[in-house]
């Protein structure tokens, strides 16, 4: 079985030949993977020992390894080819709704309708867990709708602003 696994910008082609052997980008390695509990996996590969916590989240596989969290997308080769040929679609076009990552209180709305924003620009300030948090534009665009106002309480996942 051949998989194409993507972490960030990089893709790895990993072929699982047998339970105790895989091929990574064309090179074969002996492996031994054990599930220690629901989330903990121990891998010995080429005698090197690694341990990670693994969790599925929104179609990605999250791997916590040496303090760092990696979000991996694992596709079998055919699915991967399909998604690449359809690619480019979800790159920066269409409507994006910025939602509240947690319940809290809106402290400030830093934009107005029709305003152009750049990626990373602060859009809304949300107070939660006794802290103020700046929510930023996920990409460049124009604010087409503002759904909240200052001092308003919001629930998790509640839409805050819409960006086109």
């Amino acid at each position, binding site marked *: 079985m051949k998989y194409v696994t993507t972490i960030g910008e990089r893709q790895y082609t990993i072929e699982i030949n047998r339970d105790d052997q895989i091929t990574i980008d064309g090179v074969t390695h002996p*492996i031994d993977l054990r599930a220690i509990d*629901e989330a903990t996996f121990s891998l010995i590969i080429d005698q090197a020992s690694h341990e990670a916590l693994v969790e599925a989240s929104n179609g990605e*596989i999250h*791997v916590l*390894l040496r303090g760092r969290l990696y979000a991996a997308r694992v596709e079998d080769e055919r699915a991967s080819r399909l998604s690449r040929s359809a690619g480019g679609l979800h790159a920066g076009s269409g409507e994006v709704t910025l939602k509240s990552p*947690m*319940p*809290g209180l809106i402290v400030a709305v830093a934009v107005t309708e029709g305003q152009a924003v750049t990626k990373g620009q602060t859009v809304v300030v949300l107070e939660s867990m006794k802290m103020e948090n700046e929510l930023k534009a996920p990409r460049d665009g124009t604010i087409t709708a503002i759904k909240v106002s200052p001092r308003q309480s919001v629930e998790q996942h509640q839409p805050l602003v819409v960006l086109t």
Partner: protein
Amino acid sequence: MFQKILIANRGEIALRIQRACRELGIHTVAVYSDVDRNALHVRYADEAYLIGPAPSRESYLRADKILDVARKSGADAIHPGYGFLAEREDFAQACIDEGIKFIGPKPSAIAAMGDKAVARATVQKAGVPVVPGTEGEGGLRDEEIIAIAPQIGFPLLIKATAGGGGKGMRRVDRMEDLSGALASARREAEAAFGDGSVYLEKLVLGARHIEIQLLADEHGNVIHLGERECSIQRRHQKIIEESPSPAIDADLRERMGAVAVKAAQAVDYHNAGTIEFLLDKDKNFYFLEMNTRLQVEHPITEIVTGTDIVKEQIRIARGRVLRWKQRSIRQRGWAIECRLNAEDPFNNFMPSTGTITRIERPTGPGVRIDSSMYEGVEVTPYYDSLIGKLICWGESRAEAIIRMRRALSEYRIIGVRTNIPFHQAMMDSHRFIGGSFDTTFVEERFALEQEARPEDERIAAVIATLVAHRYERQAAQVVRRNERDTSNWKWIARWERMQR
């Protein structure tokens, strides 16, 4: 002798106090809000009482309900922990009125130190150095403040007299910005504390945050347990603390300790408390404020001085005489505390809520953990984001740092994001290791970068692929298509173990 202590708090500090009580053979009474029924402080207590809904103002801040529980349960004392009701003179007074011992200072001492401008004036009279600023007890009008500002000089800080946590605080670099900054600081202070009073302090550039831990009995004896350095801060929130401080030598420690004792005596202080100072580059130090309660970072002092501050608080509240003279207090080795918060260090430290599904905690030599988390706990937005304190001791500062690195590498939490990567980067940072930093270090000079670790990324890809492969294969064998959702992940490992 106390038979039963009510702990008017939650989280790790409630657990910390319960542990002290259990060691002393004192029964504990917990109070809890709706969302905290399964919290460790409820499960660890001998008795537990529901006091209201999740928001603090309807539960943990309800002095009336807490006193009602104290009466019902027959508690002879209340320990307030930190936050919530810990620095509320009216609560301390209400305890006294009920004939229940408040484990902390007298209401008058809380009041005197609670108004930051009053506190400045009080300790200054007692000969404690303060940062140059407006004199007297606050309550100045804008015109008065604007008139005084040039004598203090820029840059300066506007601070709220009822202050705390950086609210109502503004840095002002030029005269022309002062009026606008005053208005916004007053608005923020009014919103946060219901009191818009502010005062001015000169901004001490390159300052370190050094604080002195005090213990004072009810018979006039006051000692200090040395210093803690808390300069690693973000948005005025401490993140890493250590004791001793790399900036303090024996002579300075003695001088700062003596001044801190004087400041406490100025308000006839009892029980544990902390005097916070700014230390400038020339090793001048200035009184900042007093925290009239137990501090989050008290464990580092406990470890280097070999004391148990919470048990000592209880002994003091029982009326006992301090067991130590100043000369018998000695620091040994070095302790560092990392505050673990549920937040994403790679996304502007955004708080992270959710269910912690798995925790792996470091153990072994030189490691202490104070935490109230457990597997299955939900981190809610109702309370602060502190999910644990990791404290490491070493023979030297260098050893404390390498041990902290080791302990951080063993600490694994999944389900919420944590600032563990921030702490790891800090323990690798040359400036931190060198001990040369001030309170602006994190925000102005420390960049946490998601630097590439290509080999780890490759291994992560392999593990993700192997786990996904197993899931697919096993799901195909056992689970019907429509039951395949993420909750099956847990089940797979279990299934696999059963097959072995």
